[in-house]
């Protein structure tokens, strides 16, 4: 991969993106994440009857003076979430001129930046073979972001990957944030197990499918013998004509639809990001429209 994907120019770009997001939306990653339980934040939430044993410092003495009954003031609880970003590091992500790996790294870095800006912890993993290798662990705060994000430049995209086999045995946390899977999902392997697993763990799920221009709209014509970049034993040999192209586009719609359905049925989100698509469009348009950023 180009070692300079995450560089100063890119960082300035995501700074700008962050500003745009702040001005336009209050996203999942914006503000402190409120818990469903009450906590100790300065923000008042409700009253309840005093129960012996409660912290008497939280008694509302004004209410007692008025009603002669002890009420305890309740405050909203605030929790720090842990955003886990999984990047598919298989060869299919980097083969050819598609630069899908560049787009994948940029999306991961941008999501990580937005998270750390909201004081969330961020971990970035690469899925290689059947393992989820941690590239950045528990990154917190902007300083840590700047110190660690350059590690994404070192990701090597090669070999196969099995998303389910990699995520299932890994530590994914429980109900503490968002899990983002960035992949082209062009595999026979069953990735639905991973999505199911994350859903079981009460994680919010975001699947970002990155496809190149050639994959979205193939230009190859005539008699072609295609070899699979990840497995040379796999090939496809056909006279590529209009009929084949039509079938291909139906297959593409089917495959992307299957992932979308899988995510949505598990309460997750799905977006399709072209490798040549500007980040601004992905974040300001697609992520906002899908509700990932509110």
């Amino acid at each position, binding site marked *: 991969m180009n070692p300079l994907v995450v560089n100063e120019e890119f960082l300035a770009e995501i700074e700008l993106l962050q500003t745009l997001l702040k001005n336009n939306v209050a996203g999942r990653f914006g503000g402190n994440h409120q818990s469903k339980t009450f906590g100790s934040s300065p923000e008042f939430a409700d009253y309840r009857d005093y129960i012996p044993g409660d912290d008497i410092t939280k008694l509302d003495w004004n209410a007692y003076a008025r009603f002669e009954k002890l009420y305890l003031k309740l405050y909203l609880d605030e929790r720090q979430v842990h955003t886990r970003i999984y990047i598919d590091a298989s060869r299919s992500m980097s*083969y050819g001129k598609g630069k899908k790996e560049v787009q994948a790294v940029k999306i991961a870095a941008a999501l990580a930046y937005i998270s750390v800006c909201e004081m969330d912890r961020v971990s970035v993993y690469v899925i290689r073979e059947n393992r989820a290798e941690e590239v950045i662990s528990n990154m917190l705060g902007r300083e840590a972001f700047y110190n660690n994000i350059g590690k994404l430049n070192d990701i090597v995209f090669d070999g196969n990957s099995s998303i389910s086999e990699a995520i299932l045995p890994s530590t994914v946390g429980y109900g503490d944030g968002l899990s983002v899977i960035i992949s082209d999902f062009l*595999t026979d392997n069953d990735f639905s197990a991973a999505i199911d697993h994350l859903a079981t763990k009460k994680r919010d799920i975001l699947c970002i499918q990155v496809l190149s221009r050639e994959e979205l709209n193939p230009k190859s014509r005539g008699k072609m013998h295609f070899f*699979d970049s990840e497995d040379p034993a796999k090939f496809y040999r056909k006279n590529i004509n209009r009929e084949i192209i039509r079938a291909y586009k139906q297959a593409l719609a089917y495959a992307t639809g299957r992932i979308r359905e899988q995510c949505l049925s598990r309460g997750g989100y799905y977006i399709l990001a072209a490798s040549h698509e500007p980040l601004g469009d992905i974040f300001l348009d697609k992520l906002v429209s899908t509700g990932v950023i509110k």
Partner: protein
Amino acid sequence: MTFLFPLGFLALLGIPVLILIYIIKNRYTEQTVTSTYLWTLSEKFLRRRIPINRLTGILSLILQILAVILIAVIVAHPVITLPGAAQAYCFVLDASGSMNIEYEGSTRFEEGRQKIKDMINGSVKGSTYTLICAGATTETVFEGYTDKERAVEAVDELESGYTAAGLGDALIEAQKYFNDNPRAHTYLITDKVYADSQNVDIINVGGGAVNYALRDAAYEYTADGGLKVSGKAVSYGGDAEVEIGLYFNGSDEEYSVLSLQLSEGEEKAFEFGTGLSDFESFELRINDGDDLGLDSSVTVFNKSRENSSDTLLVSDGSIYMEAALRSVGVTNLTVIKAEEYEGQTGYGLYIFENFVPEITPAEGSVWYINPDKSPEGANFSFQTEVEANGAAVYSTSTKTTVRKMLEGVTADSFLLKRFVKLGTGGGDFTVYATCDGSPLMFSGANAYGNREVVMAFSLRDSAAFTLSLDCTTLISNFINYSFPEVVDSTAYVCGDILPVNVLPGCKNIRIVAPSGKESYPDISTTVSEYLVSEVGAYKIYLTMADGIEREVNVYSTLPEEESVPLCEEEAFKITGTPQAGGLAGFYDDLLAVFIILAVLVAADFGVYCYEQYQLR
């Protein structure tokens, strides 16, 4: 079936090349893609293919192979031979004058020509074509041609004649060809009706039957000096009243007209009386339209005018020579006074009377009458003027030239007051009269090679001579000597031989026929012969040594027998037994193959376009 160029099948070697190209072109392009997942998945979405569609992949190749095969066949040029399908054609075409009779917009000759072309074009390939054309002469135009196009071109170039056709000669030629080719089929294309025929198909092209003809046009001067024009008219195709017009000197303005009632086939004489004393030419024309215009008009040229030329007379005021010249019929005469002479040019004869120029004219004949000095270039030298002691005496020499020049002179001598003594310098000259031993009348050639006539006395000084008939005769002879006749007659009939006198000093003779065709007859003899074969005015141009060109016109008319629209002949028979069976016919028309090839190429292009469109 045979092939003209079997080597053309070498083109079939293109087929393996084509297949090789197809194989190379149709190899699968190997390419590594990020994932074959979607491509493999797309198989589920492919529609069921019709088995015949599998052919579409190689349809283009099939079409191209078929195209190569057809190209090889075209190059090899297959020829299918059918025994006896072809014929040996022998056409005898009548090109006589009557074939010019028009009928429904075309002449009989054109119709005959078209019939021959139709037969050639409609004949089976392998046929042979021979054409004998019977016109002024009988000519075998082509013999044994096998190329239709070439034969048709040769037929197209044929032109009708105006003479009586010698079909007897044509029959001899056709018989010869038949003897050599007993399978030949003879066709006679003519406007004549034959009572009997043998071994010949007579194709009659005798359309058109109305014709009026003029004959025997002539002229003469009456006793009162007036010109009388006469001729005969005849009508074919029924009795008729015709109008005959008389036109003079090439003008379209009618001088006189008369109506004539004609009975079919009977000649009727007519004449025009005119008050004219001289003319260049006249035309008689039947103003009513008929089917053959060639004999409806005739032009007659004045022979004496045709054989004369422009004359310049330079005189000191004497009227004797002018009167003498006019009396002998010299009409194109220009008379000027001595002081007006500035070396004029362009005349055929220069006559200096009682005046001598410094330099003798370099062109034309020259007469010196009573010279008083020696001009440069003349064939004499002036010595002195002397009083005559006795009479002038004509030469008694028996030399032909002398006798011809003195022809018609009746007296032996005449009285003379005075004369000039001239030295002849010992050159080539002929003396016709002397006085006191000095040459009085003589001729020779001047320094420019032109004829020179000298009279060493003034016409004023001999009334005995000037007023005598001998003077007129002698002047006329001198004129003839100066302007020798080019033609003996100005009227001919097509087929006649026109004799052209090759004049002394003539460098070239050019004859222009009415059609514009030019001929250059032989001038190495004294009389050159030329076959008159067209109806109309012929122009004869003689280029003389001095560069002067003399023009003489004669007119040729259609032979009388060719004016008859319906002519019956006895028989046209080719003897011998024709051999059965025709020649081997060949069919080598590749048009159908070309069409199929074009369809295949178009289909291949269609497949190509479809594939291109499909791949978009």
